[in-house]
């Protein structure tokens, strides 16, 4: 993902026609300070409501801080020590990583395949693109409720379909792995089409003559896909993986709304589908309002995201390593 920082040459202060001193000075002030005035709202608002809370989370995590206590004494890393020995926390980490892996891998492969289908001479091109993107524009909470019913044990349509192929009813909420699968299905339903469009955009930027010369060399379609399309898509794939990592490890709405009733924030009676963000929420807000402990969860999740993102990038770099040179441009 190359962020291109230099667009067109910026406008130089225009040569000012001779005018009375005051107007001249005003106009010089304008060219000098207007840019700062224009970007100030972003930095002010983001500073107060984005950056400061994130940094302050760390400060809160070093204190014994809850809703009712009048004081919140400094306790160093005690919250973290406690958290690292907290089996419910690790349980939520395993849930999060499990859901992340079984959702992201099929999702990106399916998106590549779908992009490849869309990258042809199609009738009603926009309609197909809209059809695959539509899950992405629905309300997450609403869809999670719908999927929870589809995955219902007794009257769910999925179990009804499975019954036809001889698989007996699965209790999707009570079985931990089944819950992961159900939630991953929701995530994939929402994001596969979106990623397919991102991949499609990158595919369209690949020069056609690469394929033509490969075809002359006798490479079939499958061969062309794996040795031209995929390697050239690598920056986009890495971008998609990073975005999926940041989003996927913070997964909240889908698992929260997949469950309902009193144990919902715990992801079921035995925390079958509680993610780390849900665990942070459970501790920091209702019912516990333990801000210090919740903040420690937030920071460890932050660290987890950074580590997983770094691992993913390294893996992807290595996997496709050197393949770019094969296609000399």
């Amino acid at each position, binding site marked *: 993902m190359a962020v291109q920082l230099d667009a067109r040459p910026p406008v130089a202060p225009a040569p000012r026609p001779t005018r009375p001193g005051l107007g001249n000075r005003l106009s010089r002030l304008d060219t000098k300070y207007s840019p700062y005035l224009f970007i100030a709202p972003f930095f002010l608002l983001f500073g107060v409501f984005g950056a400061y809370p994130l940094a302050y989370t760390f400060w809160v995590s070093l204190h014994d801080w809850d809703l009712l206590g009048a004081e919140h004494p400094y306790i160093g890393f005690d919250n973290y020590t406690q958290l690292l020995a907290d089996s419910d926390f690790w349980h939520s980490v395993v849930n999060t990583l499990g859901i992340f892996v079984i959702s992201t891998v099929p999702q990106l492969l399916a998106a590549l395949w779908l992009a490849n289908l869309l990258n042809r001479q199609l009738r009603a091109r926009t309609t197909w693109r809209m059809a695959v993107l539509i899950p992405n524009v629905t309300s997450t*909470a609403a869809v999670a409720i719908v999927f929870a019913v589809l995955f219902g044990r007794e009257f769910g349509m999925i179990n009804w379909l499975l019954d036809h192929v001889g698989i007996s009813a699965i209790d999707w909420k009570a079985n931990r792995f089944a819950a992961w699968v159900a939630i991953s299905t929701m995530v994939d339903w929402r994001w596969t089409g979106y990623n397919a469009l991102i991949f499609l955009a990158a595919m369209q930027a690949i020069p056609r003559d690469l394929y033509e010369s490969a075809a002359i060399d006798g490479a079939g379609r499958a061969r062309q896909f794996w040795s031209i399309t995929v390697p050239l898509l690598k920056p986009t794939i890495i971008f998609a993986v990073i975005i999926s990592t940041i989003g996927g490890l913070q997964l*909240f709405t889908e698992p929260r709304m997949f469950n309902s009733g009193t144990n919902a924030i715990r992801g079921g009676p035995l925390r079958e589908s509680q993610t780390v963000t849900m665990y942070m929420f459970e501790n920091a807000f209702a019912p516990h309002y333990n801000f210090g402990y919740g903040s420690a969860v937030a920071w460890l999740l932050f660290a987890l995201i950074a580590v997983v993102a770094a691992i993913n990038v390294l893996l992807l770099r290595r996997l496709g390593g050197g393949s770019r040179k094969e296609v000399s441009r």
Partner: protein
Amino acid sequence: MTRLWSASRLTYLALTLSAVLSIFPIYWMFVVASRTSDTMGQVPPPLTPGGNLGANIARLFDNTDAYFLTGLINSAIVATTVTISVVFFSTLAGFAFAKLRFRGRNALLLVIVATMMVPTQLGVIPLYLLMTKLNWNDRLPAVIVPALVTGFGVFMMRQYAGQAVSTELIEAARMDGCNTARIYWNVVLPALRPAAAVLGLLTFMTTWNDFLWPYAVLNDPENPTVQLSLRALSDGYYQDMSQVFTGTAIATLPLLLVFIVFGRQIIGGIMEGAVKA
């Protein structure tokens, strides 16, 4: 680009299958919303709309657990305010970053790109403490104000302004004695309109959809956003599924309408963003 591969029947078959999978849960949501609550137990599950939608809507709006109408109105207020603000501040800052010269420009732009990678959702706890101090808990400013700007918006407008706003036009306006604010309003904003519209649509949909932060900070059940009304419906002790689904259908409807009308522009925006990012 000379020629794309032609699409075989198999291509259309696979695409049709994908489209059905995409649309079915939404379609089924409307089916259940239009039927009576005993639909759930029926085998095989009914797949055609029924005639009970009006009654379901009436019961939904009478439901004293969900405050659904308040939720709808609140979500409309929040999403509209946030959208206008994000578009305004993003075009303003995007213009400055793309077309004006000032010290620290590149460094500040890097900061903006970095903010797009930071999971700000993890800052909800101090944000909650801050709202308590401002006495905004349970009130709409708590969900509006933190969303008034996004790094994504600034970056998107900056990328677009770089190509869409004519430098010559800006210079000419300056020669005519326009100050920078007027140039923004009369030259830049009209040129940015297509991209600003896409940003507005994406922002509206994201804000309408927002769940975690409103859930944390709006604890008064009588003053929810529509997503929180859905939560209340779904967590209710007694679940009337056709009523819950009526709620999910109504909460999804504005997004679907926006998408059906502006789908082409939204797809264009997503795909252009992908190439530039």
